[in-house]
């Protein structure tokens, strides 16, 4: 039986200044605030940041009450409020939005508010809000991100983040921009994200085959290409994975990835009959690094007869 000992919530910094306001004193007590008390603290500019953050977290589903909802929205929109308080307001709303039925009537204003702060001065707020809208496949957020990819002067987020968020909607207009960035990337992460997004476009498969075959490409990009190809053309990649594993001069990390592809998704009747491959993996079990030794062991226990 697990311990029933009460574990206190993570500590928050003590209020920065003493105050006579009743709700703030309540925060110092070990018991959680009442929901109404939480709201009073949350909206009170004079409470400490930590107390307000905690109070916003304590609102729970009372955020769905119209008055509390608009109060929390106001905090979120107000650029003069401390960033930590605004982020806590955002989290409180985001958490409440999971209660779809309770939240339904509030959703239009919630979405409109999120759109109104996509170009907020706070990077973290921009990043979170654009993420939330992008996951709703919101056209406004998508267009703002696309504009930034085409014209970095308008970018609200770095290109790699914009690509990551745009990837949430395979029907978004991002393929052209991603191809441009993949061809001329501002940094390695942006290239990786562009390639990942292009993994949703079946017409990009020849490009991934070329990357996988090109030993001058970085290992992580070749591995990403291997996983994308493996999803879209499993038979083809199983054959390619076999070649990579057999080739002693191949990149070790790529070999390990290919070995995992064979072990986890291979066809037993092909692999058990493949003497050359089983023998090679027998070698890897003795000479590879810890990862490939472990994976070689798994392969052999599954396919060696």
């Amino acid at each position, binding site marked *: 039986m697990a311990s029933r000992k009460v574990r206190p919530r993570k500590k928050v910094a003590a209020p920065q200044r003493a105050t006579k306001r009743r709700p703030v004193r309540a925060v110092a007590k070990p018991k959680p605030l009442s929901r109404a008390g939480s709201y009073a603290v949350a909206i009170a500019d004079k409470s400490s940041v930590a107390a307000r953050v905690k109070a916003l977290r304590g609102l729970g589903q009372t955020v769905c009450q119209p008055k509390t909802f608009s109060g929390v929205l106001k905090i979120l929109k107000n650029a003069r409020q401390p960033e930590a308080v605004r982020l806590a307001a955002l989290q409180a709303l985001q958490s409440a939005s999971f209660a779809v039925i309770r939240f339904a009537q509030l959703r239009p204003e919630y979405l409109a508010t999120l*759109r109104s702060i996509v170009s907020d001065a706070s990077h973290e707020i921009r990043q979170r809000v654009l993420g939330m809208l992008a996951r709703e496949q919101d056209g406004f957020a998508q*267009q703002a991100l696309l504009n930034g990819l085409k014209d970095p002067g308008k970018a609200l987020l770095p290109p790699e983040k914009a690509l990551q968020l745009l990837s949430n909607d395979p029907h978004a207009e991002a393929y052209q921009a991603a191809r441009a960035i993949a061809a001329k990337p501002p940094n390695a992460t942006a290239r990786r994200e562009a390639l990942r997004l292009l993994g949703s476009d079946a017409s990009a498969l020849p490009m991934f085959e070329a990357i996988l075959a090109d030993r001058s490409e970085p290992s992580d990009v070749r591995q990403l290409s291997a996983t994308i190809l493996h999803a879209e053309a499993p038979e083809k990649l199983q054959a390619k994975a076999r070649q990579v594993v057999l080739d002693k001069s191949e990149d070790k990390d790529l070999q390990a990835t290919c070995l995992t592809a064979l072990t986890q998704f291979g066809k037993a009747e092909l692999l058990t009959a493949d003497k050359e491959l089983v023998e090679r993996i027998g070698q890897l079990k003795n000479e590879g690094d810890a990862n490939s030794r472990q994976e070689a062991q798994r392969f052999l226990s599954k396919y060696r007869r």
Partner: protein
Amino acid sequence: MAIARPNVQLNILSDAEAALVADVNDLRDRAATHPEAARSALLAYLHEGHGMYRDRGSAAVVRMRGWVLLACAPVAWSKDLERFVLEELDNGQDPYLTAVAASVLRRMAVPRMSYTPLLQRALDTVRWHDDAMQLDSYGGYVAQGTSTTAVREVLAALEWLGPLAVGALTTVQSFTSQAAQMPTRTRVQWARTITALTRQESQPAVASCCAMPATAQHADPPHRAHALADCLLQDQDGAVLRFGDFFSGKPSLLTFFYTRCGNPRKCSATMERLAQLQRALRAAGIGDQVRTAAVTYDPAYDRPSLLAAYATARDWRFDADHRVLRTVGEFEPLQQALQLGVNFVSSVVNRHRLDVLLVDRHGAVVESYPQVTWQVPEMCQRLVELAGLDCHSSQFAASSQGSHSVE
């Protein structure tokens, strides 16, 4: 409400969309002097295959279509336009386009009871996923305040129908539990809608409303599919066949889908309904007298194993006469020859309509059922007639329910 000039917010417009906006505004302005030309040009923009939509993202397609639909206000209401509006209410899922459709319907059409089930469907679609919007600005995005919402627009359309929409009263009343949270303007609209639906009129409305039947369009040149005779298809098991070999000898139903479709009212529902239709045909003992097939729009992505998994999850049972297919190579020849309502961003579908075609035993497309959701018993009946068989439609009404229980 007069539709204002576009108020393009936050400069989000791409060049392609800016060009469309300029053109559509121009057409709308010319509608007074050249009504026919404006009307046909605007309707042409509503066809998914229009070049304007090529390589635009789905969200851009939504904005563009919304603007075109709104611009139709000064032109005459017609059956063509009605179909585009009802299609959105029936199987669209974007709150903005739903709102646009409800608003255009209310401002242009004459109230008809047959609109009720579609508005009710639209209300079910948007009630949990409403959005704020402004119908007089391109894209509809609002940054501050809410001009209107999709729920409000659909409720306003139901109010406009008045007692003709009494069939939707239960759905409208089911918002009661949410009334406390409603923004004032939604609550006002909601109350007005209930009042209008329950208004006593001298001519009492008939309360029963069934689904709107899809309207058949007779194919103009019935030889269209012959151009595809040599087009190669691959089925869910990997077997390759000629288009002309499958779509001949027996009458067939041909429809389209893709596994990555994000709107379950379209592809997922189409495939479930097709499985129901197959069950109904088999139950009537004529499963081998007619053929059914669904072809993917996305052949490069939808390999046979994905096709099989998608259809199986929707209760399909495959045999020689009932298959899921992809083209070997490009989809475009089918799109062109069959004038399908679909377009793409790179290789991914950005928008498609429902397209169902009936092909006779000689391989000629004889009827198409575009846009609005088709019903299983009616479609069974048409297939039976094409096959020259003697079955009664009541047979299908019962068996098409299949394994799907009713609450």
